[in-house]
């Protein structure tokens, strides 16, 4: 099975996010960048499939040089090859532009039985890129996969829906996006880290893929502004020591009229 895994390089979820001066980007100073956690599930599954039988795993990431660390992390966890796509980096948060770039890279590299991605990138939480890549590559797609079984040129994928499980069969090649629960990703080993340091990362530019940077930036959506969540207000304490019945009545009234939860 030849797989490719799309890795998004995102701020560590423990990062303290500050807004950039322009107001529509985050301030990237001091941010630690990591593989998007959902992409870790995707990568782990691709590597397990390879280890269970045979195959080859390519990790692809689109972005500036910091994605090289993301790709090396992927290699350290068992990927065999890594590809960085560069250029046109005004596409931040523009899922369609990112998907066009990744789809073009997948077509150019060619020969994959499976394309894996996380169900969403934790950077902008859009859950769009995987499905868009499938559409642009004209491949079937199952999102939010919790279990995948392969055989006879097909995949049987399980995904959670409200109140139950959907089981979807799709022919290969196809695009699968990984949901939390698919597996428990491994830690990269020290040996893997050392080997990944020496591995070559193939690079290709947006122009190499025949895409126009300006056209990419103009497609899809553009982030107009970002705002930090409002500061939390103080809590309210009802003193029930002297008259608990009155305090309970007041609590019920507030829950009904102010919080509107009962």
């Amino acid at each position: 099975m030849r797989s490719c895994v799309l890795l998004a390089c995102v701020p560590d979820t423990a990062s303290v996010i500050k807004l950039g001066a322009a107001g529509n980007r985050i301030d990237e100073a001091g941010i630690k960048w990591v593989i998007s956690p959902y992409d870790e599930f995707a990568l782990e599954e691709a590597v397990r499939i390879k280890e269970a039988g045979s195959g080859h795993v390519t990790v692809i990431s689109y972005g500036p040089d910091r994605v090289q660390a993301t790709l090396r992390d992927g290699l350290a966890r068992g990927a065999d090859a890594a590809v960085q796509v560069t250029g046109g980096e005004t596409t931040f948060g523009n899922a369609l532009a990112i998907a066009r770039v990744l789809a073009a890279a997948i077509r150019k590299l060619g020969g994959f039985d499976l394309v894996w991605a996380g169900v969403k990138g934790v950077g902008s939480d859009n859950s769009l890129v995987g499905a868009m890549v499938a559409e642009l590559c004209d491949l079937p797609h199952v999102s939010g996969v919790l279990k995948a079984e392969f055989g006879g040129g097909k995949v049987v994928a399980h995904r959670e829906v409200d109140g139950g499980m959907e089981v979807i069969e799709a022919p290969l090649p196809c695009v699968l996006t990984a949901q939390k629960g698919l597996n428990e990703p491994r830690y990269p080993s020290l040996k893997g880290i050392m080997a990944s340091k020496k591995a070559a990362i193939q690079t290709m530019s947006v122009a190499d893929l025949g895409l126009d940077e300006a056209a990419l930036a103009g497609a899809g959506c553009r982030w107009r502004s970002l705002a930090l969540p409002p500061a939390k207000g103080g809590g309210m304490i009802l003193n029930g020591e002297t008259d608990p019945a009155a305090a309970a009545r007041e609590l019920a009234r507030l829950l009904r009229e102010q919080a509107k939860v009962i």
Partner: protein
Amino acid sequence: MTEHLDLLRLDELLSEDEKTVRDMVGRWVDERVLPGIEQWAYEGRFPRELIPEMAELGLFGASYSDYGLPGVSSVAYGLVLQELERGDSGLRSFVSVQSALVMYPILRFGSSEQKDRWIPALAEGRAIGCFGLTEPDFGSNPAGMRTRARRRGEGWVLSGEKAWITNGNLADLAVVWAKDDEGEVRGFLVERGTPGFSVVEHKGKYSLRASVTSQLVLEDVELPDAARLPAAHGLKAPLACLTQARYGIAWGTLGAAMAVFRTALDYARIRVQFGGKPIAAHQMVQEKLVWMANEITKAQLVVWRLGRLKDEGTLTHVQVSLGKRNSCWMARECARLAREILGANGIVNEYPVMRHLMNLESVFTYEGTHDIHTLVLGKHLTGFGAFEPGPE
């Protein structure tokens, strides 16, 4: 993962893979060690179940390249130990012993048969090792050891006792140091189950509770000559192992210091006393926090330099003494200051401070006490040895 204290942007002195290794092990410690460590320490139990995970990560013998070992830089290896000891000194001790005191002597002094047999097994965690040098009556002065290796035919007979041996009861293999009939110290690989070889656990420890410490008893243990480390001659052989281990302790205790500093800082920011201000706004608390940050920062520079010298191949045992002495002293002081800042909360296992504080009492003393390292440096500076062994 917890943000590291880095006042001087020392991260810029690290290579990408050194940072990757540190962050990976740090994440493993956060996810796999910190949730359980207070309970394990309280119960006095070493978490054996973590051995396969540590082996999978490649933590055993990480800085060596033979037998397909990872061959990380000395600084990366140091950062591994720093992160492990940010979890617990006992866990770091386990890895130090396995790597520096068991794999190292086999790689450096062992025969190819010994290496083939043991190095892969030790790296994969299929075999656990321990190192027997210290004796009940000979700690700082190992030259006085009473354990004897006597020739019998083609082989040897070992007799004596070793004390305070980390991993003893867990070990499949003990590297035992003994004097031969000519008074020369030799090293032997003694396997668990060898007739006459027994192990007794030290009970009642208030320190390193998540680590196994044992006494090794050798009652006329017969060994073939193939069990001897052929290239180990004299006390300098075990001392070379200790230099390796002490290098790691200099890094490791930095992790314990970082853990107690971070705990104290977080606590001081939210603990309110006297007029609604957090105690972090009080001058005396700030002084304690600054002392810790200041000493941690200096120690970071020292160990980084030791690591680079080690990779250059010029690191001396005197330099290692300086690093071990400084880091352990500094970490022990940090733990006490952190305990003060946490007040009564500093003594309960809701916080890691008391555990680290108690652990550091051992680490301050083992692998060359603070005072002995002082005298090593004193001898280096003055030319006068103040701890020359007298007649035993």
